[in-house]
């Protein structure tokens, strides 16, 4: 966890001030929640599905090195090639080299968060290779020169007016009608699919026993990217592997309902190696790039390793009050929201604020929604503890010292009481210094009567209102 220049606080404040973006975000999140209610909440056996999927994810962590070796052997036996990459730059280099060695000029890409993590598009651009994102949301983001704001719906923050303006400017096609704009994207991307020299996709699940790469999508762009070009490169982070097809089925029981509220997406594809003897299409070469980027270190950490159970469904983002308020970009890292606040600071390369674990209210809605059984707040708490142990500013240290001693705290509170009710106003005028920033960043509670004296009345009011103040 290294210090970084990115300031989540500033970015969040800016996002909160943007009314238009907040309205688009609120509408999108509301929509996702309805979908989830109709699927997960309507599935009588969801609890049982979840138990089985959690068992599979835990088995993956317990046997990770063996599973990866089996996966490598199976992919190789099926005519594919496996490449291990230590970190983001070496993964990007590996793929770039595979493509330049084969004189590839045009690449079609299926949506992949790991591809964002390794900065693949930038690396390919530097190598003079045209890489086209083919998921509609990612395509919009790429045309706009932005970054995804949600791990599943990357353009969730973009309004249809903005898409319309973008298509007019970049593709020279005018339309404000959403189905027509979708058709414009289809026409434009179809030419790319048919002409591409290679397709790069992510991987939702890899099956060790069979060497199968499983991908889920609704649009069909991943299926085209992996089927039409002569080369298919699949990119996965190493924890996506499971043992058998039965294990994959257990994960598939929970992934689409938690992600998009579907029982199955339109396209569920299982790719095993390259095209076989006698087949006329499918890639002649299939490569699987397996990325570590800090994950093996996370596995060695007994208190934090459970984040590797994550299946990237996005359910935690959709229920998080912080994510819903500030949106995905404010986090400044590849992975936003609760899962991102745990994962991003632990990865070797994932730009953002190292203090991302503090962007959390501990409401635990994420843990309740997580189908993989991850307790995000507990993990974030541990990360906060470590960050504090690394050192913090003078004011926080002073507060911590006070809080540890009851009589010193009571004395300090008495002083603060004498300054109330103007405390927040006074604190707001504090000079720009470490202590000043500590004071200005906080809203102080009413202190004129000690909490111990207010408690009885408060408890009475709570019981009258059924536990709500």
């Amino acid at each position, binding site marked *: 966890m290294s210090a970084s220049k990115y300031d989540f606080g500033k970015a969040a404040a800016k996002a909160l001030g943007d009314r238009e973006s907040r309205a688009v975000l609120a509408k999108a999140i509301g*929509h996702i929640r309805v979908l989830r209610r109709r699927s997960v909440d309507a599935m009588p*056996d969801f609890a049982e599905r979840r138990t*089985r999927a959690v*068992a599979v994810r835990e*088995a993956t962590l317990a046997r*990770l090195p063996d599973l*990866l070796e089996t996966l490598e052997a199976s992919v190789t036996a*099926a*005519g594919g090639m496996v490449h*291990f*990459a*230590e970190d983001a730059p*070496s993964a990007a280099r*590996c793929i770039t080299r595979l493509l330049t060695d084969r004189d590839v000029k045009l690449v079609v890409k299926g949506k992949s968060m790991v591809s964002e993590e390794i900065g693949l598009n930038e690396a390919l651009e530097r190598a003079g290779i045209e890489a086209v994102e083919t*998921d*509609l*949301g990612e395509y*919009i983001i790429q045309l706009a020169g932005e970054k995804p704001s949600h791990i599943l*719906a990357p*353009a969730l923050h973009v309004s249809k007016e903005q*898409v319309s303006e973008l298509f007019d400017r970049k593709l020279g096609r005018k339309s404000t009608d*959403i*189905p027509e704009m*979708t058709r414009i994207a*289809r026409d434009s991307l*179809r030419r790319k699919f*048919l002409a591409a020299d290679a397709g790069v996709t992510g991987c939702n699940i890899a099956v060790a026993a069979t060497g199968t790469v499983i991908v889920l999508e*609704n*649009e069909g*762009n991943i*299926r085209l990217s*992996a*089927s*039409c070009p002569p080369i298919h490169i699949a990119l996965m982070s190493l924890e996506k592997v499971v043992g*058998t*097809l*039965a294990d994959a*089925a*257990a994960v598939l029981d929970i992934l689409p309902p938690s992600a998009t509220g579907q*029982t*199955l997406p*339109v*396209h569920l*594809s*299982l790719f*095993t*190696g*390259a095209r*076989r003897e*006698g*087949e*006329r*299409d*499918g890639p002649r070469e299939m490569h699987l790039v397996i990325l*570590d980027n800090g994950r093996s*270190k996370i*596995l*060695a950490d*007994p208190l934090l*390793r459970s984040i590797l159970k994550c299946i990237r469904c996005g359910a935690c983002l959709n229920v998080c009050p912080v994510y819903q308020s500030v949106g995905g970009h404010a986090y400044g890292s590849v992975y936003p929201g609760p899962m991102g606040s745990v994962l991003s600071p632990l990865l070797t390369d994932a730009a953002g604020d190292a203090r991302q674990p503090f962007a959390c209210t501990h409401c635990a809605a994420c843990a309740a929604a997580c189908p993989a059984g991850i307790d995000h707040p507990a993990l974030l708490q541990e990360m906060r503890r470590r960050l504090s142990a690394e050192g913090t500013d003078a004011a926080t240290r002073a507060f911590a010292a006070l809080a540890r001693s009851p009589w010193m705290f009571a004395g300090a509170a008495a002083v603060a009481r004498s300054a109330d009710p103007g405390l927040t106003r006074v604190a707001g005028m504090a000079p720009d210094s470490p202590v000043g920033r500590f004071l200005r960043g906080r809203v102080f509670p009413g202190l004129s009567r000690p909490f111990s004296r207010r408690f009885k009345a408060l408890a009475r009011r709570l019981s009258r209102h059924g536990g709500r103040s």
Partner: protein
Amino acid sequence: MNARARSAILSRLRAATAGPGLPRPSAPVGLRRPGRGVADFETFAAVLATLGPTFELARSAEEARTALIGTAARHEVKTAVRWEHPDLDAVDAPSVLAGAGVAMIAPEELPDRVCPSLAAVDMGITGVAYALCATGSLILAAGPGRERGTALVPRLHVALVPRSRLLPDLPALFDRLAGQPMPSAVNCVSGVSSTGDIEFVYVRGVHGPLAVHVIGLDWL
């Protein structure tokens, strides 16, 4: 470089899994409801109808031939590409369509790069390995004479589904798949491709075929 990364990553993972706190691998997780549940055309057609494709049931080879000719006419099909598949032969699909004036492309006539050659073809006609009733899914397995592009690039995909190929659901499919060598590609297609990427407005027909028509073969 790759070999060094491989051994470094695997040895770190080995050290990590040898450490304390990881749960011991539990007994293998079996399939949810393997192989049970309903598998009939009523269930399949009802789910399929909610996903975009159209469906008609043929009770004889003669009815299936009529259905094929009707479909080609309805969608103004001039050219079609087909799979080499016993279920197509069972209804004489290639010659029936050719007889109705459709220019048929056989697998062996396809050029080296299949997908670009199909860009202007109107229809792809295939069989299926299985079909799943709970989710209205067509299971397409690639192989010689069963090109991936046939069901993917033309604007219309027509699939022939005999009753004997109906399975209840995904666990039943994975059960079957586990018992045989995996084909290079297995596509489980549930409906017509769709997106909600612009303001969550649901649009059908993004990248795959814009229309999917399924003809059930009740006697097979």
